[in-house]
Every structure is written in C-alpha cells, then in structure tokens.
C-alpha cells in the first residue's frame, strides 16, 4: 500500500493537468508589481530613518545608511562605495590615485586637471582620477542599474526624481547626494528625451571637471 501510494503520488504530480495557462501579460504584471513593492519598501525605510532622525537627533550619514540598507545585506558601511568590474580589483570613490592607477581595468583616455580612463565595459571617460582627491568618478556599464531603485540607462527623469525626492535637476543632469564618507552622489546625465544616459558615482567636492551630459 505504501509503495502503491508513493507511486500514485508521483504519477499525480507528473500529470500534465497540473499545468496552468498563464495570461500573455503575466510577466509584465509581475515585473510592475515588483517595482511597486520595491518603491513601497524604500519609502517605509525612509520614513523610519526620518523618525529616528527627528526623535534621536542622530546623523543620517552615520545611521541612515545601515537603516536604509536592504535587510538581508551584509551591514552597509559609510566607507567609499566599492565597484568591481568583473575580473578586476575593486575601485572606490576617494581611493588614492596611485592605488587606482594600478588597476589593470583602466585605460587612459585623456589628461586634464584630472586623468580620465575607460573601463573594459564602459568606453570614454568612465573613471576620473584626481591626483589630489583620488578616484572622483566611476561610470557604471550601460546594463547596470542602481542596486535598490533599479534606475539605469533609459530610465525617465521623472522616475529618478520620484525615487529620490531630494535629487537636484540642472538642465541635462540629475544629481543625488547620498550619505557616506567621503561625500558622494549619483549623477544621471539625461538625453534630449529626458532619459538617463549613464549612471555615475561621483565624489562631491573634487577638483575634476565632471560637468553634465
């Protein structure tokens, strides 16, 4: 009887009638729902951090980062944000120029007041290094998106501003200051249609001409 029941269960679970048809737009419905959940979660985290800020008088730059981090992530730090091009050592904003220059992912494109380098997956002036301030810009590959808000190339400016109400738009550039040491920001250059053309991480207050577009 046991063997027979085992067999019957296996047979039942292999039955093609278990298959269910999906609506043609099912994947789109789910992707949209996932975006909605992500936004809701970020909003809740923001409210919580603000409550602490008002109630306890603590600095967002010190506490907000860990409160706003994704719950299951390793504890975020306020250290410079490391970025790794697959197969190469990490780069991080503020990393000393000499250490950054040794990274074989970098190819020198031009020298201004700062040095500019391309990356294997990012052509042009992907990385800026200031002799004084160290790494001042890291541009993410075109396929990359911001870790929690999923903003990337092609995202409309309105979405960026929706995710980051504190963002500042000047002409064809949106910048968002973020907590951390050293001070840094996201920079989202926009095209004529108002869509993001790149995601950059930039040091605030460096001497590099980072500009817009």
């Amino acid at each position, binding site marked *: 009887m046991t063997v027979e*029941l085992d067999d019957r269960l296996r047979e039942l679970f292999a039955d093609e009638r278990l298959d269910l048809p999906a609506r043609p737009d099912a994947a789109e419905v789910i992707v949209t729902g996932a975006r909605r959940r992500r936004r809701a979660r970020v909003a809740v985290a923001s409210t919580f951090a603000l409550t602490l800020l008002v109630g306890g008088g603590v600095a967002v730059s010190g506490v907000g980062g860990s409160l706003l981090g994704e719950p299951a992530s390793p504890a975020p730090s306020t250290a410079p944000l490391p970025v*790794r091009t697959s197969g190469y050592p990490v780069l991080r904003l503020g990393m000393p120029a000499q250490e950054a220059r040794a990274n074989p992912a970098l190819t020198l494109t031009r020298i201004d007041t700062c040095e500019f380098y391309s990356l294997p997956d990012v052509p042009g002036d992907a990385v800026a290094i200031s002799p004084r301030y160290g790494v001042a810009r890291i541009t993410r590959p075109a396929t990359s998106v911001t870790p929690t808000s999923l903003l990337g190339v092609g995202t409309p400016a309105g979405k960026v501003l929706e995710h980051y109400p*504190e963002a500042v738009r000047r002409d064809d550039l949106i910048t968002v200051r973020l907590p951390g040491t050293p001070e840094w920001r996201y920079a989202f250059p926009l095209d004529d249609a108002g869509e993001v053309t790149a995601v950059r991480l930039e040091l605030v207050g460096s001497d590099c001409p980072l500009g817009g577009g």
Partner: protein
Amino acid sequence: MTAVLPVEWVDPGVDARADFGEFVRASLPTLLRYGHALTGNPHDAADLVQTVLEKLGARWSTLLRKGFEPLAYARRSMANAHISRWRRRSREKLVADFPDAIAESGVDRLEHEPLWQALRDLPPRQRAVVVLRFYEGLSELEIAATLGISPGTVKSQNSRAMATLRKRLEEG
C-alpha cells in the same frame, strides 16, 4: 533619504531589470505548475506565484549579487509562503479575495481525481512535505532545510500525511 550603500557593487553583466522579466517569462510555467501542486487549486497557485515573484523581483539585484539561484529561491519561498499564508488566514479568518492576475482559467482539471481530492484534506505543512518529497524528489534532510524544520518533524508530518491520504482513499 533613500540611499543604500552596497558593500560591493559587482556588475552582473546583464540588465537586471530585463533579466528579471526574462526570468519570470521562463519560469512561470514551472512555477505555476508547482504552485498548483502546493495549493491544490489554480486560483491560489496564481496568487502564490505572483506574490513570491514580486517579492523576489523587488530584491532581484541583491539576490543575484549574493549568488542565489532564482528558481530554487522562488520554489523555496513558495513552499514557505504557502504555509505562512494558511496560518495567517486561519488566524484572521479571512476570506480569500485575490485577483487572478496570472491564470487564464480557474478550472481545475484534476477536480475529479480521488488522490487530488484527498490531498485537499492535508494541512499546508503536511501537503508541502508531500509535494517536496514526491513532486520535487527531495530527501528528508533537504525538506527540513527548505522548510526550516527538523528532520524529525519532516518524518512525522510525512507519516501523518500518508496516513490521512490512505484513509481518505479507502473511504472513497
């Protein structure tokens, strides 16, 4: 402030947004089928799959960065979500009223199968153990790890489930 400082930002090599959509499209048939086995009806299966995938999608880049295999993660989440949801509903006595966002047809083609009917009498955790064992082919240890319970509990839940199924089939 809405900032997040990842410990390390590794380029996944693909567009995470497009990739999640692709993952959903590719995995929907198998997850709907699995959800059907877990819940016992198309309506709850569609709702379970939608809920779990939306949550997974909201954390997609983090999960990829941490090296999770999305399909295995989704299946594990479904088994656990199914059990938790049943507990919650039972506690709050809620009448389920979920939109059928996925399944086109609410018709259950297994409706008249005696064993399928008998499975309906199992509490969700017992049913999950049976599904993980006979649908997924997992060992007791693997089932224990998936559901976060002890191997002893897996064994006892399985014994009870099989006894109930046998009884129902004999009665039927």
